[in-house]
């Protein structure tokens, strides 16, 4: 049974393997009823209005209002596209994997309804290359949906067409950036494009394109089915709805938990995920994946878990992935791990990110080897400042913000490791394999 703090909408019936199949989805969740109603009874503007009214914010990281984004697409006869961003690659984030693996039809139905709102005739699910199993599941579900007439030409006799293609990425974090995703989908090197023009105006193959995250699109059938007001009944005013939160790191029960936005962060981390292992304390946590600035336990744990509260605290909710660091974690090593990830994934197109991530890694490596001075710490800080706001896309900032925050908030730890590198604990001690299941309470 789900924990009482959980509020399962997207993850309802998620334990039942039958949900993966079309039959199961229909039986357990009333699957495709909403699609049928939307296609047969609703106009584009009605669907769009419902989405706009719901206040649903993008679940991929930026938190931009989904309905508003869809409304930016120009009207007219040109080819329009919908892309589902399933390139979930940020350290700490594993919620989309769960959603696709357990309930692929919910996503497909969401895409089909969103395509109605965007007037898109072609849709793509750009799935992270490593999500092999999930891609297979999606492929099977898409085939079922085609078979049942929910996709393809003249859907349900409504004279509307939608082609849906599951495209497997080649394993690059940058392709989760929406314009890099588009380039990769077009067969080019996956590098971000200059914005403007924004994808809503000029996206895939130059056509207007709506790009949304898996979780965002999975919400669509529920909103259209039960109405915007129902959706707004959950969460806070600025962060309506439920959120699947991936919790990992130094907790007893890591996993995905679907909760109402605005829940206390402490409840999330300590009640749902079981809190730190016995004898340890939480030192800090990333509230929204590895790209969010770390919050010390005392500054963040008592905040409501919402877009606005995390922003106010100088961090962000991002994709909703909490990484907990207990007192065994060496922050300098953590900073290095974080920087290494972004250095490895930087596409290299713009100078501040390409060179900044590389330089930061080299400096942090020297620090944990004890080959640096406090002056270097100032340089690391200044380099992070020099990256932020100067890059072509947000990848550079995604390293600079957390690393900058770590140096700022845990400066004494960096000084300590430079002084006595051999005394600092191996950060690998608390590294765990990514959880394979729903939260342990499931």
């Amino acid at each position, binding site marked *: 049974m789900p924990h009482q703090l959980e509020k399962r909408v997207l993850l309802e019936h998620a334990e039942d393997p039958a949900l993966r199949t079309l039959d199961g989805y229909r039986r357990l969740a009333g699957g495709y009823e909403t699609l049928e109603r939307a296609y047969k009874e609703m106009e584009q503007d009605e669907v769009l209005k419902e989405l706009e009214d719901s206040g649903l914010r993008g679940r991929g990281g930026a938190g931009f209002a989904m309905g508003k984004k869809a409304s930016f697409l120009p009207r007219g006869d040109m080819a329009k596209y919908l892309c589902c961003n399933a390139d979930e690659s940020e350290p700490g984030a594993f919620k989309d994997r769960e959603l696709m693996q357990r309930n692929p039809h919910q996503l497909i139905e969401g895409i089909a309804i969103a395509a109605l709102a965007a007037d898109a005739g072609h849709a793509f699910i750009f799935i992270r290359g490593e999500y092999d199993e999930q891609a297979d599941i999606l492929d099977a579900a898409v085939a079922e949906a085609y078979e049942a007439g929910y996709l393809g030409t003249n859907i349900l006799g409504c004279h509307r067409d939608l082609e849906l293609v599951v495209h497997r990425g080649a394993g690059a974090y940058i392709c989760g950036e929406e314009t890099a995703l588009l380039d990769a989908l077009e067969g080019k090197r996956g590098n971000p494009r200059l914005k403007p023009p924004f994808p809503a105006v000029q996206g895939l193959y130059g056509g207007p394109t709506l790009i949304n995250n898996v979780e965002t699109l999975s919400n669509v059938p529920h909103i259209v089915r039960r109405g915007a007001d129902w959706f707004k009944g959950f969460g806070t005013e600025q962060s309506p709805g439920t959120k699947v939160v991936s919790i990992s790191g130094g907790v007893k029960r890591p996993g995905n938990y679907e909760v109402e936005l605005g829940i206390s962060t402490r409840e999330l981390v300590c009640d749902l995920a079981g809190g730190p292992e016995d004898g340890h304390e939480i030192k800090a946590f990333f509230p929204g994946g590895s790209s969010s600035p770390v919050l010390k336990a005392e500054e963040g744990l008592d905040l409501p878990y919402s877009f606005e509260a995390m922003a106010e605290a100088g961090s962000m909710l991002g994709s909703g992935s909490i990484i907990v660091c207990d007192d065994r974690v060496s922050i300098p090593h953590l900073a290095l791990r974080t920087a290494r990830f972004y250095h*490895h994934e*930087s596409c290299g197109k713009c*100078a501040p990110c390409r060179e900044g991530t590389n330089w930061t890694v080299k400096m942090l490596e020297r620090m944990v080897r004890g080959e640096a001075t406090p002056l270097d710490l100032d340089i690391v800080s200044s380099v992070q400042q020099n990256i932020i706001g100067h890059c072509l896309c947000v990848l550079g900032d995604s390293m600079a913000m957390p690393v900058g925050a770590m140096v700022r908030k845990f400066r004494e730890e960096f000084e300590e490791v430079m002084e006595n590198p051999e005394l600092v604990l191996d950060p690998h001690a608390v590294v765990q394999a990514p959880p394979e299941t729903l939260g342990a309470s499931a």
Partner: protein
Amino acid sequence: MSPAGREVTITIDGREVPAIEGEMLHDAARKGDVEIPYFCYEPKLGDPVGACRMCLVEIEGIPRLQTSCSTPVREGMVVHTRTEQVKHAQSAVVEFLLVNHPLDCPVCDKGGECPLQDISYGWGPGKSRVIDEKRHFEKPIELSPLVAIDRERCILCYRCVRFSQEISEDAQLQLLDRGDRTYVGTFDDRPYVAPFHGNITDICPVGALTNYTYRFRARPWDIEHAGSVCTLCPSQCNVSFTVRDEKVKRVISRDNAEVDDGWLCDRGRYGFEMFDAPERITEPRLKGGTEAGWEQAIAKAAEGLRAAADSSHSGVGSKSVAAIVGDASNEEGFLLQRLLRDALGSPHIDSRPSRGPKAAVLRRLNEPAISAKVSDIDEADAILVLGTDPLHSSPILDLRVRKAIRRNGAKLVVATERPTALDGGAEAIARFAPGQAAHFVGELAGALGGRENVATPISGTLADAEKVVVIWGERIAREDGAAEALLDVAAAIGMSGSEGSGLLEIPDTTNARGLREAGCLPDAGPGLAETAVGMATEEIRQGLISGEVAGLILFGADPLRDFPDTPAWEEALTAADFVVSFSMHENATTAKADVVFPLETHAEKDGTVTHPDGRLQRVRPSAGRPGEIRPNVLVLSQLAENLGLVTGIDSQPTAFAALTEAVSFYNGITDEQIGGRGLRWQDREGGPEHGNAPAPEGATQSEETGPTETGGTEPAETERDAPLSVVQPEQTPGGVASAKDVAAEPTPAADGSLTLGTYRDLWAGPITELNPPLKFLQPQQRVEVSTADAERLGLRSGDRVRVSQGAAGVEAEVHVKERVSKGVAFMAEGVLDGNANALLNGGPVQVKIEKLSEVRA
């Protein structure tokens, strides 16, 4: 991203700057004299990429700094480029760019002319905080046999890759790997060989891409830059010579959007070492190669020409000297025709390698109302490439057409004998059989007029377009009636009434237009004015053989290499009593000459040339003349004087003044007006509305028999002249194919012979033989046949064959090409071994192919 066009005012650093709405802020700032540093931005390369982040500026109302290269200007925009925030960001970007840069300026060729150096000094932090190891690559390595790449110096600005992807569209250069491991390279490390690839060395903002021809040759403080014009092909690209110790060390592009868009082909860029080739003629010579003093050689030439002119083989004594001009400036051409017409009293002068339209037709083709200029291509709705492959004949126009398609959505139609490099971007393609150009162009005029015929599949695109530019090859006009048919096409399109529509010729020789306008035509004097009709090139050849012509002046022309029918030219030059050859290099023709005078190169010459679109451009002396070489105009003037004609020309200015006075539509043009950008005589204020020299209408219109007529009716005297199976229109109708569907093609002759089509390869000729760096590009003769013919004749790519026409034959390697039409074989003109000119005889010829050896499996 075309600017909206509205004029707006923006404020940059507190100063009001006029701008055009929609243009990039960086461009507006530059025009307003505000310097914003940048690396990756280069409008020539298309849309901005915003990769280097160097041009960040503050725009009021936008919280984050913006890249000025990618921010379109709006009315009232308030921009700051020197605030603390901006300075901080710019300094940070410089620091980042230098994190992995080796800072090896003292040994870097770019040092002193390096944007990275300049910007680091101007906007950088001044000292480095980087003490960590930098990235390492093997360096320098060959990106191509001509360009070295030093990947450590590369700042990954994307320029070279964008050039390869979006300008030359060869798509060979790629960025490989990612992050700070990213490097520029090619698939599988193959050499980057493409006809424009040298441009990447011009646009590289650091020392990562350098020319092997210039590495370690000079420092910026050792050199001088001299602006001139490249005269290696009719494109007449604007160049700047890098000169050290009076020698050319490098050729770089000199941006002129009206001519070359700031690009240069590799021919023009690397074809300068032949200025110093051992084959260069640096002093006057007499027969057998003996060097002679100038006075002696001029006297000898005058004496020989006078004797030839006075000799009376056929009783027409005063008409027995002729001249053929190939590569020459307007002034040289003008002086030469004076020398011939006024000093030697002969009307026999031509500037075309083969036949050409009559003067009456040329005057009509010269009409400004139906003339296009190069930049019209940019704005054209439709472009017809007719009977030419720009890549080989005027390379820079290949890029221009690609640009029009890519950026302006122009629709391209290609109608040629041989597949062209532009076929890939064409909306419709038509193929006509060699010798069928006139027929095809006539059909096209008909189709544009609404008739249903073979040209109908391509005429729709042209008929639907408002602005149409027709890029046509001079060689189609070798066929009788083709130029007239072209005028009909122009009329059917309604060119004279449509601004931006027009004809643009790609001639066979560099300054063809200038020489025609200077009077080097058998039936027109300076300004295309009427004059006594003389012999054209092929008649001169026949005249030499028959004895009607005794003396010949060849100026920058090598008939044994470049003109059709090599055996006949051999015979003609052997039969000539006296030959004077002006040539840059020794060649088969100079070996047959009685007196050889050295020519200046385009780096040494002072003179003007006229671009095919009518733009007069100035070739300026940039390097020292080697050996005893004298200015050619002086030599010609002195020779004329020895022949009794005092021209009063003793310098370039006097020669230019005489030229502009003689050519009606050049009247009053001054050197200052030409300046560094050239002047299209059609565009000049107060210039003539029509290019026609005043000539009686009746005389120019009614004359129906062209100068080529006599050549064709020459009695067959030798075996070579025996009638050949000339392909008639009924046998091989102009085959037409749409872009997808290759349809009607000439039916192969019953005896298995194929119709020969020839083309001038970009790399055929002295350019690859005399320039050591370009030797690797020297083309070998190959015969291109269709898949069907290859199958029928049992040929495979790589087989060695002998291709013969009558008694003449050359060896070649078989290349089976899918896009070649059935019944046709293509071979290159001007190659060292197996020159296809040996097989030509003035009309379409049939060739037989016999296998010599098979390709090894």
